[in-house]
């Protein structure tokens, strides 16, 4: 009897020991391979260059320090051209052919949504999908437990902005110009929440991705008597709307969601953009938190050209922190399961780039608070603390 028990215990120990030493695909003694799917040929290919460049800058920094548990982190980038179909092909290629350890930073809502079935089937985690859609961290969706979202949703951003506006001016009449796609749909969701909270009604005007002319929308805000206008665009939209408003003599306060925190907005809008307020879900690259300071240092060291520095390059740098932390938590013999378990133990984790982050079994939304920045003399200045 004793013998059988000890045999069982010994075999169990050996088995556990072996288990501890087995690793998931994509891990060798010297390397961990990570897959990234970006838009390299489609409408947002600018991001496809900048985000991985930022990520690589941080990974090089980590690798120079000896990597994660002695392994160098390598990243393969595939292209999806903002087409979900191609995103699926790329994901299959990365998982089946290149044998990556995990996926990271798949950009765009529909491409990220499209690979959910693959995550479910293969059990590969997706760290920091580059989309501000809150559906990414919705735990009731398929494969949600494999997805670790970092970005604060557009709905949260919109809600926070409306709260902020009404705090300062309870009589404000708010308008929102939203992009006619999932970006806009998410913003509208936050808008509806705020409308219900405050019992107000927000004037909504839509525009298409790639539109160049916003006279109709701006006129409508003027006709509707909006005092505060939120713009859910990227760079061109806030710039053109503010310029148009200035030209037709319509004065209102303008606000923007995450992607408008781009230095080019200040550059292009000139005096029309002075006082433009935007929300962001990470420490701004100019601030003196540890993350941004490291960012500035590394940029100087690597001679990153000035036109590349900014929102998206920094974004790639920032989300890489979460990836590296996940790989660290996966331990010396990383498996995908251990990585996910490890990330789920994070509690108020200070990354230096994001506000304190928490993941657990029922919460895969990373950043759940945003900061409000204002354009003052062409520079972004934080005017509030973290809010949610």
């Amino acid at each position, binding site marked *: 009897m004793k013998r059988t028990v000890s045999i069982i215990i010994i075999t169990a120990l050996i088995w556990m020991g072996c288990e501890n030493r087995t690793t998931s695909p994509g891990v060798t003694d010297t390397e961990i391979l990570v897959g990234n799917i970006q838009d390299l040929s489609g409408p947002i290919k600018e991001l496809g260059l900048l985000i991985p460049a930022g990520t690589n800058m941080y990974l090089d920094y980590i690798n120079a320090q000896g990597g994660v548990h002695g392994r160098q982190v390598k990243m393969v980038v595939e292209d999806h051209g903002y087409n979900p179909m191609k995103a699926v092909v790329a994901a299959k290629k990365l998982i089946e052919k290149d044998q990556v350890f995990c996926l990271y930073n798949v950009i765009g809502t529909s491409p990220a949504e*499209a690979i959910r079935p693959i995550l479910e089937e293969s059990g590969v985690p997706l760290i920091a999908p580059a989309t501000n859609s809150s559906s990414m961290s919705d735990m009731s969706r398929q494969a949600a437990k494999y997805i670790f979202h970092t970005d604060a949703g557009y709905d949260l951003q919109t809600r926070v902005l409306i709260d902020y506006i009404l705090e300062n001016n309870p009589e404000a009449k708010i308008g929102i110009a939203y992009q006619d796609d999932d970006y806009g749909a998410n913003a509208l969701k936050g808008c509806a929440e705020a409308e219900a909270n405050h019992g107000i009604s927000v004037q909504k005007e839509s525009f298409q991705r790639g539109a160049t002319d916003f006279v109709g929308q701006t006129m409508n805000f003027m006709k509707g008597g909006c005092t505060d206008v939120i713009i859910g665009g990227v760079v061109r939209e806030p710039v053109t709307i503010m310029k148009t408003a200035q030209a037709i003599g319509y004065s209102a306060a303008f606000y923007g969601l995450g992607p408008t925190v781009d230095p080019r907005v200040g550059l292009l809008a000139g005096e029309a953009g002075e006082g433009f307020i935007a929300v962001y879900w990470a420490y701004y690259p100019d601030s003196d938190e540890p993350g941004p300071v490291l960012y500035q240092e590394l940029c100087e060291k690597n001679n990153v050209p000035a036109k590349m520095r900014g929102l998206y390059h920094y974004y790639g740098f920032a989300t890489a922190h979460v990836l590296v932390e996940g790989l660290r938590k996966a331990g010396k013999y990383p498996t995908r399961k251990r990585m996910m378990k490890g990330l789920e133990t994070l509690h108020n984790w200070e990354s230096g780039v994001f506000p304190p982050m928490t993941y657990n079994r029922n919460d895969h939304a990373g950043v759940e608070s945003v900061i409000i920045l204002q354009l003052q003399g062409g520079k972004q200045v934080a005017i509030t603390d973290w809010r949610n």
Partner: protein
Amino acid sequence: MKGRYDDENLKWIPILIIAVYLSPFLLKSATFSYKYYLYILNMAGIYMILTVGLDLLSGFTGLMSLGHAAFLAIGAYTSAILVDQAGLPFELSLIITPVIVGLCGLMIGFPALRIEGMYLGLTTMGFGFIVKRLIIAFRDWTGGSAGLQVSKATLFGFTISNDWNNYFMIYTFAIIAIIVARRIVKSKLGRVFMAIRDSEQAAQASGINIAKYKMLSFFISGMFAGFAGVLFAHTNHFISTDHFDILLSVYFIVMVLVGGVGSIYGAVLGTLFIVLMENMFIPLFKDTLTQYMHLEAGDFQAFIFGLIMLLFIIFQPMGLYGMWLKMRIYWKLFPFNPRKRFT
């Protein structure tokens, strides 16, 4: 009257069908990343069903369509709604959805009675934009711009869950679709279509009701696309408006053209060629080249794709199938081939 090409004498078709069913086993034994290749082949299989239908419309009836991605979208969304929201069995959706899409085809076919050539191509392109927009507008059913999760296909109690099973389902349907299309082409209906393509006036003079047959052509083509749409939705499990870009419609036409306009096998070959080239060969090529040339991978890939397409159109206007036929004639006549006739 015959098609553009004489495609008699293809006795090896049964062998080809067997090869289609054997190839996944071959792939599995050859490479451990076979699922990736299977997925690409599945995609080609679905597109094949659509391009064969598109060839009936554009190649045989001579009606240009730049809106076939919209038909695919209608098919995919209709089936997703029917199966997941109305609770219809998948088998029934396979029958109902193509009919619904065919009726949508009639709707777009109606302007085609008055509009022709280039105008028709661009009008159908507009139809593509309109459908995309309507899908977003009916967000209660379609999930709007966020996209829609779709359930797995269940065929006679058997759930088709992975790429392996998808392959056999898709290719069985694809083979059926190709056979049906061949039957149509060889029938009186096919000859009427070709008569309309070659000369509308002459066809009218011989007592053909042009309006009726043009509509019919749109209906049939829509049905093929709807069928492809059903398979598309239930094998991808996620559909969104981003899937059905205007560029996809263009790609469908390219597939037909590269294969050889006005031949069913051409459409099949062209689809296979374009899908494999875009998703497998160019990425392979790209990996090696970008390593040495440090080019932006995405654009380089698009550049190569465009270049291959352009060279193809300039040097092989008859398409792949035409190329194959020429080669066959060449070997048949081997020592006695007249100068320059095969350039």
